[in-house]
């Protein structure tokens, strides 16, 4: 399953991910990472039954962990199948079929929210944001 780990600026310089991995022996398969001066954000895959363990360890070290189990919602009635969303999604959730219909593979979604801003027709939404 996919999880998102947020690290705030005050603990950004500490190797807390490495520590948690060593401490729990749970492997994280990192698919996206973004760090700047104000915060860090990592998206990773973890085995479902190991989630609790690594989550607890990371939280103890001050990180915020969210399960990415509510992917992008697509409202087919609002969608006009323009394809605006395709080029902004970092994980290729969207594609066009041979007949130019929109295909949505939401299992790949990491809930970054980029497509929500992009869609001109308010056809895309995430549960935890607008």
């Amino acid at each position, binding site marked *: 399953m996919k999880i998102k780990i947020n690290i705030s600026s005050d603990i950004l310089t500490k190797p807390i991910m490495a520590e948690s991995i060593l401490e729990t022996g749970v492997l994280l398969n990192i698919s996206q990472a973004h760090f700047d001066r104000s915060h860090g954000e990592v998206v990773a895959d973890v085995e479902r039954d190991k989630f609790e363990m690594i989550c607890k360890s990371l939280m103890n070290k001050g990180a915020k962990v969210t399960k990415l189990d509510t992917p992008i919602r697509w409202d087919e009635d609002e969608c*006009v*199948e*323009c*394809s*605006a*969303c*395709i*080029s*902004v999604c970092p994980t290729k959730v969207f594609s*066009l079929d041979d*007949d*130019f*219909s929109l295909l949505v593979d939401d299992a790949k979604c990491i809930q970054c929210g*980029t497509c929500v*801003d*992009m869609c*001109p*027709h*308010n056809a895309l939404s995430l549960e935890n944001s607008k």
Partner: protein
Amino acid sequence: MVKKSIHEINSKIRDGSVNVVTAEEMVHIVGELGAEGAAKEVDVVTTGTFGAMCSSGVWLNFGHSEPPIKMQKVFLNDVEAYTGVAAVDAFIGATQVSETLGMDYGGAHVIEDLIRGKSVNLHAISHGTDCYPRKVLDTTLTLEDMNQAIMMNPRNAYQKYNAATNGTKRTIHTYMGSLLPSYGNVTYSGAGVLSPLSNDPDYMTIGTGTRIFLGGTQGYITGAGTQHSSGGGFGTLMVQGDLKNMSPDYIRAANFTGYGTSLYIGMGVPIPILNEQMAQATAVTDADITTNILDYGIPSRDRAAVRQVTYEELRSGYVDIDGRDVPTSSMSSFKKSRIIASELKDWISRGDFFVSMPAERLPKDVSAKPMKQTEGIALVSDIMAVSVVTIDKDASVYDAAKTIMETDFNHLPVTGEDGSIVGIVTAWDISMAVSKNKFDLVADIMTRKVITASADERVAVVARRMDQDSVSAMPVINKSRHVIGIITSDDISKLYARRS
């Protein structure tokens, strides 16, 4: 040589023997039969497009109230419509945004709500006259309650449109959608092979009076659109149709984050095949239509072209920029464009729609002018302060505080050994340092990432950067990064205050 008349084609439509194909199908037919063969075979080619057309709106006539009012200002669901024409006529424009909801709701949404049969709140005010005594009016209206609701779009159906990308380091939000940093994506608009004007680029059959598909009903081209620039291949159309017969399948409100509202319009133009030239013109493909990819990160009317590209490459999903595959997105819907072209084809085949010859052809080889600006374009050098006090990075915080007190400058650019800029300190940084009992060197408390301007930049561009980076002053530097002046948000406000 094939020669047909509109009259002959319309008799074929009447007796059901007409042969209509879409512009996509026509590509193959001309490929197989050649232009002459195709011209004999095919009578009408249908085109279609469905995309954001900001320059759209609707003329409404509300009927007269009792006692009557001569509206001076009118709002529909809090979106202002222009009513400076007689008493109860108003034009609701697609991009006007709500007084209360801002960019989330605009004229485009009012138009879609009306088509969907929803009622809208009308609020009007007036100064009151002897013949129109009423001063305020509030009521609720549906589309059915209006006398007329005529869609009248000043500029629709661009022949083709520039594609957009972004060379800056931050995501920008435009009417071409979100553009990711460092050429992260490319967006484009237009139906390419199905584009109405690209299928008749010499305007042999498209002109004033041409009957078209507009928003799901029959409409008309009333002339060349505003900014019609046929010389450069950017022709546009002015169109009109009855909103009361339109369908939300083909008229859709849109929101572009950070830009505002717009209206997606579905339009299809039939092209009668009068001769083989017309057959040849309608055989145009995505590969034949080129456009430029422009860098929308450049905040100017004159954006540099990153490269030329065909619609075929844009539609493939990726374009090559500097050896990198950059993903593309269409902002208009090709699937809907196809649906429109085939719907129009059905109408004509069924005998419900007849083709027309324009009363007047669209002007060729004209170009749109940029705006004449009588005030001149203000440059940073025009308003920057040239007497600027800098401070050395090895000076003490105490020295910096003293300099600020003595000179009345709130921002001190910090210079390094060679005199070039290395940072900036503000009165705020100094108060912070003092409150923490930190009396170190300026170098320890300064902001290192200074936002700077250069003297030949335009003030409007610098003002936008100041806004985005939330700073209130920028050192102006030359090529060797020496400080030659400073520009503050106060200077900018004064400039604009003087002008208005």
